[in-house]
């Protein structure tokens, strides 16, 4: 051993080599490589960088306090919502709508251009192998990157503009905005601002009505289930809130939004009369989520 027995001196070894460390700081290889005013990472530089971090942290906090994270309404497969991904996927989403990146050419869209673009980004160092580092001295790599950036900005902007137009054209308001407005209304009235949990079941109105039998006979139960709660089709409990008798009759006769086929002939073949169907529609129209007494 390198030290005398009984010595109280602390021995510092370097790595695993069991070589006694010499006096003074041993500069790592990269320390002297750059002449100039280098400074220690800890604590000098890290404290300065922490100041930048604090500015960013304050920025995030201001953002979170002024703009609460959006939250819409609970997921419902039969809701009509224009799908939109998070903003940083918009360019990809819009790109895959282009004629030569969708439909019959979808493979070109997903694997072809996207695959080549991301693949070459991943392997950039092996494609751009020259020793020149300045971006203006490697025009091919730089111009490809500038082109991609321009495309990303253009596609993101187009996607967002189209989404806005579509929302305006269909008269839709983003659900998080709707929810926030409702919460503000409730707050103003001193009610709880969170929506009540949607656990209250809507009851079937006039369960003993003969229309219930007609409902089962006409084949409605195949999609809307025997308890009206819906299966492949939506729940019919409370359907009277959104459709009146005439509306329901026309849905039975003509189908609904290409989602439900016309069921009139099926019902007639099952032995129902026009009168039965009329009564069924009337009964369905009575299915309100809350019966006003």
């Amino acid at each position, binding site marked *: 051993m390198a030290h005398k027995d009984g010595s109280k001196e602390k021995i510092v070894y*370097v790595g695993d080599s069991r070589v006694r460390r010499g006096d003074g700081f041993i500069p790592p290889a*990269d*320390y002297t490589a*750059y002449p100039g005013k*280098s400074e220690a990472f800890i604590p000098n530089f890290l404290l300065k960088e922490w100041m*930048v971090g604090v500015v960013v942290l304050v920025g995030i906090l201001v953002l979170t306090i002024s703009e*609460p994270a959006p939250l819409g309404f609970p*997921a419902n497969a039969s*809701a009509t919502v224009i799908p939109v*991904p998070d903003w940083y996927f918009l360019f990809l989403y819009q790109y895959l709508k282009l004629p030569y990146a969708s439909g019959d050419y979808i493979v070109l869209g997903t694997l072809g251009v996207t695959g080549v673009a991301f693949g070459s980004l991943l392997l950039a160092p092996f494609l751009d192998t020259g020793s020149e580092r300045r971006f203006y001295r490697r025009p091919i790599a730089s111009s490809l990157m500038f082109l991609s950036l321009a495309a990303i900005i253009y596609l993101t902007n187009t996607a967002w503009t189209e989404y806005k137009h579509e929302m305006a054209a269909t008269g839709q308001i983003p659900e998080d905005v709707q929810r926030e407005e409702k919460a503000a209304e409730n707050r103003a009235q001193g009610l709880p601002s969170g929506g009540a949990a949607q656990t209250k079941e809507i009851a079937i109105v006039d369960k003993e009505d003969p229309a219930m039998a007609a409902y089962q006979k006409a084949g409605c139960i195949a999609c809307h289930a025997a308890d009206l709660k819906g299966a492949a089709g939506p729940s019919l409990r409370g359907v009277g809130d959104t459709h009146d008798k005439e509306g329901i009759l026309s849905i039975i006769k003509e189908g609904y939004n290409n989602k439900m086929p016309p069921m009139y002939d099926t019902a007639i073949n099952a032995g129902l009369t026009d009168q039965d169907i009329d009564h069924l529609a009337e009964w369905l129209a009575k299915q309100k989520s809350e019966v006003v007494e």
Partner: protein
Amino acid sequence: MFKNIYNWIDERLDITPIWRDVADHEVPEHVNPAHHFSAFVYCFGGLTFFITVIQILSGMFLTMYYVPDIINAYASVEYLQTKVAFGQIVRGMHHWGASLVIVMMFLHTMRVFFTGSYKAPREMNWVVGMLIFFVMLGLGLTGYLLPWDNKAYFATKVTLEIANSTPVLGPVLKELMQGGDIVGAETLTRFFALHVFFLPALLLILLVGHFIMIRRQGISGPL
């Protein structure tokens, strides 16, 4: 006293070299904004890590309230948002941080690209960095579904349709992520598992690799 504790541990584990390797290095002038203001572009990597730490911390607190099943997911998020003390702040930090981490990472990638810092001998670090980028995008994608509101649900449906359209691998990938025939209960638990366990684990491994390589190779020299 702390010095004695440190020495006691150091005598047994020889931790000084590890600590020296992490902390004891110099920052060259050309990346230090205190000397050249334009060097602020070198901050983006550190800021990406900083926001990643915020994401991990805020995410850990979110899982104290979040329930990954389709009956309660939305209700738990709403409860967190409206009832829990500072819940809105924590969820807000996670929500906005998710966007900011993409922004910072993008700026960091652009800095590395336009300063040509990915060139020899740092090729492997660039590849690892790009993998980190992809993992982050995956985290954004899986996290988007978790509040289980309509926006999340329909966006995920479209995403899975797009995944499905990839030849050969697509349908397998879709089924793996969706966990069934429809976007439903299984999808939510799978996205939760990916978002909270698989992808963060992968991210941490990649980050360790990224940082070890930076320490080994040092920062690329001035242009």
